[in-house]
């Protein structure tokens, strides 16, 4: 088991001082080398859960252990360093840094870890090769297609060889052909690199690929 979350609750306050309880005590485990998918209706709190599990946001209650580390108890600085070394992210809208080339985008997480640009670029090139966009390494995000951008985003998530990759609707913004390429890439990465994925998705094709599927309904995991 790589991730263990217990009793995760999250409430949002809306403008009229009313409370909206999105997550009501969620328990969740993720096994190593699995592709696990979280599904649920829009507004069910899937993305919120993903952000809470990755330490990007804090729950009102609950604990999250990744690789045995209780991440919610870490200071801001320590959780940032933990994220850098152990967690990778892929977001729906690619979220690449627009001022930097594909190669630099993949190098930055390594540079955050203290690696030099020169050294980081070597690994970045390998990863670009692996995701099949090596020839586009010197192009900025605006010069890449949606599919290419998302593959660069996957390569960036792999930059520091993380324990787990969190993906929020990774193919939500792609056409069917590019979605298929991306899904195959995720499966290959699991098989070849023993990579673990926790994915929030609506895409039935991607849901089919999941080793385990968790469904959120009314703030709890129903299956």
């Amino acid at each position: 088991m790589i991730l263990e979350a217990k009793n995760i609750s999250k409430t949002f306050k809306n403008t009229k001082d009313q409370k909206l309880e999105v997550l009501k005590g969620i328990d969740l485990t993720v096994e190593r080398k699995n592709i696990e998918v979280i599904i649920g209706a829009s507004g069910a709190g899937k993305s919120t859960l993903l952000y809470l599990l990755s330490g990007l946001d804090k729950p009102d209650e609950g604990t999250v252990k990744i690789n045995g580390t209780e991440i919610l108890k870490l200071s801001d600085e320590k959780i940032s360093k933990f994220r850098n070394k152990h967690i990778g992210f892929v977001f729906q809208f690619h979220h690449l840094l627009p001022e930097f080339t594909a190669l630099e985008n993949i190098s930055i997480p390594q540079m955050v870890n203290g690696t030099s640009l020169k050294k980081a670029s070597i690994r970045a090139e390998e990863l670009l090769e692996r995701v099949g966009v090596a020839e586009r390494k010197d192009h900025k995000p605006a010069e890449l297609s949606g599919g290419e951008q998302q593959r660069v985003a996957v390569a960036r998530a792999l930059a520091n060889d993380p324990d787990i990759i969190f993906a929020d609707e990774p193919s939500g913004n792609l056409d069917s052909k590019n979605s298929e390429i991306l899904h195959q890439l995720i499966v290959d990465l699991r098989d070849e690199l023993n990579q673990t994925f926790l994915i929030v998705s609506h895409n039935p094709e991607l849901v089919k690929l999941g080793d385990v599927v968790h469904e959120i309904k009314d703030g709890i995991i129903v299956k």
Partner: protein
Amino acid sequence: MFEFFIAKRYLRSKHKINFITILTFLSTMGVTIGVAALIVMLSVFNGFGSLVTSLLVEFDPHLRVTNIEHNIERNTIVSKVNQLKNVTNVGFYAEGKIIAVNKKSYEILTLKGIDENLQSDDWGVKSKIVSGKFDVSSQGNIDKIILGLPIALRLSARVGDTIFVSSARSIERSVLSLSTPKSKPYIVAGLFEAKSKEYDYNYSFTSLESAQEMLALKNNVTGLEIRLTEIDQAEKLKPQVASIFSEQASVYSWYDLHEDLYNVMMIERWAAYILLALIIAVATFNILSSLTMSVIEKKKDIALLRSMGATKKSVLRIFMFEGILIGLIGTGLGMIIGYVICWLQINYNFYPLDPTKYIVNSLPVLIRTSDFFVVGFASFILTFLASLYPAKRGVNISITDAIKWE
């Protein structure tokens, strides 16, 4: 350091909102103009300050001792002072008020009797002779006098003329005793022009013995003057000179002699420095606004970097570096422009002064390295402070909000 790598790129790349690019350019230019103006202004102040100091110090001693006891052994004192490091000339002087009369004109002056050893070709009255020569020896029974050029014009006295001099004391005595004041003839041996009104209009020079006799000082002196090899050593030598004399004696350095003037010049310099630093301060407000807008524009990037593991400190550093880079580029350009303007003025005198109105024919400029440090430091601190607020704003951005709502 990845923060610097990112800050550099942010500064170079074109912003989505064109106005931020324009504002960044304007803030850099603002710092450039402010720094260049400060460098030029400080260099002109240095030029004037150095001109005034050189005019005064070319005439003044570097150290002056007054309130000397009457019964001192003068030769012993001179040899003791001469043994001190950096001393080049030592000599006693006697001075007092006189009235110089020629035909129907008269002028109230200070007659200063000086030791000829105290004079040199490159400083003092000897170096400022414009007509005749420096000669205070006696010609027969008649002593010689050196007058300031404007005084000679007022008295209509030329070199070689004889004028009559009475001491203020003898006039006072004659008024009390209802007798004619005693006056003594002097031959005008030379005219000097120190380009300082204080000296040119008030001083006349003769030999020490002649002044002692005219001022009825018997064998007493007013003080001792010392010239050094290096002007900067004056303050250091003051206590050593004072230890040679009794406690009553007062020792003044060249700075003490015109302390008020130097202080006024210093206050003027500081006031101008602070006022011109305001130009940089205004320019840094532009940095503040352009960086604040840049932080708003880069909200998503900040969230993304945080998700990749960048700490709050790193985000702070990225925007601090961006602001400091704007400041450094502006300061560097300003220093270069300021230096070039000063260099052009020194070498090509593109801002001349009318020599009939001023004592110099060009605006005096003196470049000092220390000014570049002072201006650079002020600019850096102001830029740093201006970057602090936007950078802190960047730190407090909510990661999830920025990612969710894009």
